């Protein structure tokens, strides 16, 4: 008699969607599971390891490492969570007057003055108006609130675009290598093909249009049609900020090749060097006289990065320009299936794109908080970059922007062989050893993609400034030991 226990269960590793099996996301992958295991061990027995705490440098999660939220934004969101107190006398003793008036203003434009209802599937109209106004102020070119979709972070916007563009593995999406692995994961999940274009480490992770063109041709020869070009600016993990000429070349390329330009601009407020400046692709396209008929552009922004770092609230938007009515309707339809993004995140998107202005009561304190955070990030970026460059066999491009350093490691052959024995990538082997010795969590470069035979790790610049010296000391000591242990 056949027993039910010999049947394949309805959902098991043998019959789960293979696209799910095939996708990877290293930022919260094996290294993090390892770190969590060590953390649990430390909690049970504080002497179990040669370090006191895990130092998470794997993920761009600033507030988890002590970054203070911007008080004006916090106050407005808190008031809107409990609007009953807006009219109370005592509220004035706890909240700043301009936070109270901004919250009141926002409440007026919420349908039914409710903050707990599903909104329009693109986000509350009044909040999109504020975002559009902010984009216009930033770029000097108009933005249409109907082009804006407020989302739970920028990631859902990426997924929607992949869903739209990918029908099969014959649909290719051009991605920078190294890239933020949301892109590789999303492309795999939606059944498409990632077409890599390599950033040039020698020239500060430069993007060469000739390289992109070459990859388009290679893809074509494999039967893959490229549908979109992803550009992450400032770069993740690479940190480069594109210069205007480069951006213009990219825009021209997309127009010529009929590619959707997906501009991941979530780090637009994180630029640390005097000689570079962020310019949105929207601004660049418009400055070239390119309008909706010339280029299809998806611009992504998030409340998780910048100087605001509201990762946990899940807020952001995509601005889509240059596509026809029918396609916009499809994007709207896709958005409507999940009803809407969370209201708190929507509100924060409108605040981030429309912060206190000169003359506002909170302007001074807001500016001070913002500058403190940004200048500290710039300092930390510099210190860590120098530390990496001082290590044997390590070279590290400067972090022009974003929140990461991506040093290149010349790993000794013996370590590469040891990694092979353990069946992991050599940079993962290094990262696991680092974690075991010091509690420091870096993400192996293989999680982001890299030129074959090169090895990297990604390290955030987010640990608190006063912790950085000890991190550097631990790191240098470990590295020396590692190089000694595996020297040829």
């Amino acid at each position, binding site marked *: 008699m056949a027993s039910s226990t010999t049947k394949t269960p*309805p959902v098991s590793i043998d019959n*789960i969607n293979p696209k799910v099996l095939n996708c990877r996301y290293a930022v919260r992958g094996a290294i993090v599971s390892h770190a969590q295991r060590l953390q649990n061990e430390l909690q049970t027995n504080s002497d179990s390891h040669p370090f006191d705490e895990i130092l998470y440098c794997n993920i761009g999660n600033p507030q988890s490492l002590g970054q203070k939220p911007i008080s004006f934004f916090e106050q407005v969101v808190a008031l809107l969570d409990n609007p009953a*107190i807006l009219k*109370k006398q005592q509220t004035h003793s706890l909240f700043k007057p301009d936070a109270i008036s901004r919250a009141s203003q926002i409440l007026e434009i919420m349908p039914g003055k409710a903050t*707990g209802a599903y909104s329009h599937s693109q986000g509350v109209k009044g909040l999109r108006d504020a975002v559009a106004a902010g984009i216009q102020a930033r770029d000097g070119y108009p933005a249409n609130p109907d082009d804006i979709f407020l989302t739970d972070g920028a990631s859902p916007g990426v997924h929607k675009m992949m869903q739209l563009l990918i029908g099969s593995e014959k649909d290719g999406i051009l991605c920078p290598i190294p890239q933020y692995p949301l892109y590789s994961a999303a492309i795999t999940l939606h059944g498409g093909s990632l077409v890599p274009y390599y950033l040039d480490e020698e020239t500060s992770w430069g993007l060469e249009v000739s390289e992109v063109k070459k990859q388009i041709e290679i893809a074509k020869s494999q039967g893959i049609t490229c549908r979109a070009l992803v550009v992450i600016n400032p770069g993740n993990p690479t940190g480069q900020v594109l210069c205007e000429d480069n951006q213009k070349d990219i825009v021209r390329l997309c127009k010529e090749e009929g590619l959707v330009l997906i501009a991941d601009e979530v780090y637009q407020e994180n630029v640390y060097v005097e000689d570079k400046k962020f310019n949105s692709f929207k601004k660049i396209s418009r400055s070239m006289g390119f309008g909706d008929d010339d280029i299809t552009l998806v611009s992504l922004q998030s409340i998780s990065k910048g100087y605001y770092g509201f990762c*946990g609230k899940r807020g952001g938007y995509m601005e889509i320009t240059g596509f026809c009515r029918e396609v916009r309707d499809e994007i709207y339809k896709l958005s409507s299936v999940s009803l809407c993004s*969370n209201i708190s995140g929507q509100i924060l998107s409108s605040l981030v794109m429309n912060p206190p202005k000169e003359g506002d009561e909170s302007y001074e304190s807001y500016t001070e908080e913002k500058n403190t955070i940004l200048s500290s990030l710039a300092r930390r970026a510099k210190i860590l970059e120098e530390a990496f460059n001082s290590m044997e066999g390590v070279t590290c491009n400067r972090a022009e922007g974003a929140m990461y350093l991506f040093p290149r490691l010349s790993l000794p052959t013996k370590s590469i062989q040891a990694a092979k024995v353990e069946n992991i990538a050599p940079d993962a082997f290094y990262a696991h050893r680092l974690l075991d010795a010091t509690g420091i969590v870096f993400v192996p470069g293989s999680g982001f993609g890299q030129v074959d035979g090169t090895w990297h790790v990604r390290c955030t610049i987010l640990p608190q400034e006063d912790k950085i010296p000890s991190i550097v000391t631990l790191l240098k000591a470990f590295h020396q030991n590692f190089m000694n242990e595996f020297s040829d």
Partner: protein
Amino acid sequence: MSKGLDYDTLNENVKKTAYAVRGELYLRASELQKQGKKIIFTNVGNPHALGQKPLTFPRQVVALCQAPFLLDDPNVGLLFPEDAIARAKYYLSITSGGLGAYSDSRGLPAIRQEVADFIERRDGYPSNPEHIFLTDGASKGVMQILNAIIRNKNDGILVPVPQYPLYSAAITLLGGSLIPYYLEETSNWGLDIDDLHQSVVQAKMKGITVRAMVIINPGNPTGQCLSASNINQLLKFCFHENLVLLADEVYQQNIYQNSRPFISAKKMLLDMHAPINTGMQLVSFHTVSKGYWGECGQRGGYFEMTNIPSQTVDEIYKISSISLSPNVPAQIFMGLMVNPLKPGDISYQKFVTECNAILESLKRRAHIMTDGFNSCRNVVCNFTEGAMYSFPQIKLPPRAIEAAKKAGKIADVFYCLKLLEATGISTVPGSGFGQKEGVFHLRTTILPPEEDMPEIMASFKKFNNEFMQQYDGTGSSGYSRM
């Protein structure tokens, strides 16, 4: 040169997807609203949009968590009660850096423990927080699980008809096949095991492997609460057919009668014996959007996996990790919902009063609406035993169906558009949920304010009379249940 986002080259699955809840009727209603017409939106279960007030205590707690500086201020007690302050302090202590930090991709462990405790209290069986994942609304969880299951169009998912069209939309988007099983309107939207069995047989003949079965309990749009024996039968059915059961239980707090209280699929499963209680795979969904909380805009939900192999759980975790984490404020709402105030807490009395007022009012409105529809010509309506909707059957006369055809509209869409134009009442046509061939319905919510209900029902009745008069002129062939 064709452009990247030309309509022709869009993913076909996207084009095929439909989601009527925010489809044609809603868009038309929004247009009319812009033109100045007063619209009563009854198209989506969105209580706060129709005047339901948020519960006071959770809003106080979350506001304090959003702005922790308040907790250090000596004046905080002027605005917030002690228990809200204490609870906020607790939640802040279990986050990894406040509400602005990504949490664990499955949600904060302490809140998942609160959910596990709630499930244990509710069902009488221990629950493992490692198998509970918090999500940005239950919808995200449904998509995630279906994404794990569906490999290609030969994977079938059994879905009730009528259903909440998230399921049909998700299955289409993911490239799977929807296998309908019909609920029987004349038996209170009951489930028929023979019909289920037939659906599976037919699917198999078409080369489809049926992988999962969806139940919505209490039902949406149909409002029925499944009986214990019905749940028992379908559990056995799923086990026998080797299906994972997806139990959408988001309306478990919305019960308006006593003969069929809510029983979770998990409890029924664990009440059974081996091998089914450890062998049958189950995923259960819940949310902060419904019940008497109605916090739709927070986007808070969870799913609990029962008897799912650990390797599969790891894969599902991996998918969660790509989106980093569910939003933290909603996680706190979830914690508060599953672990509410206790007698003796300062805010307890007020909280209980608020909850009961909402629930009692929903019950009254369920009756008003059902009775109202049943008093209308050519309309029959099952009682809303649970959830938030009324799904009356409109017996459209042949002349109306013809007129609809001429206008290029599905018959119930035609009716609902006319209803909208005449009265401002924005509903969702039954065709958006699925129904038997030739049978028409509309879905409305029981959420408009109680004081507006009589007028809304009167307005509907007037329109319906005129419509039926127009298309069924004689007046003698009309039917009404009352």
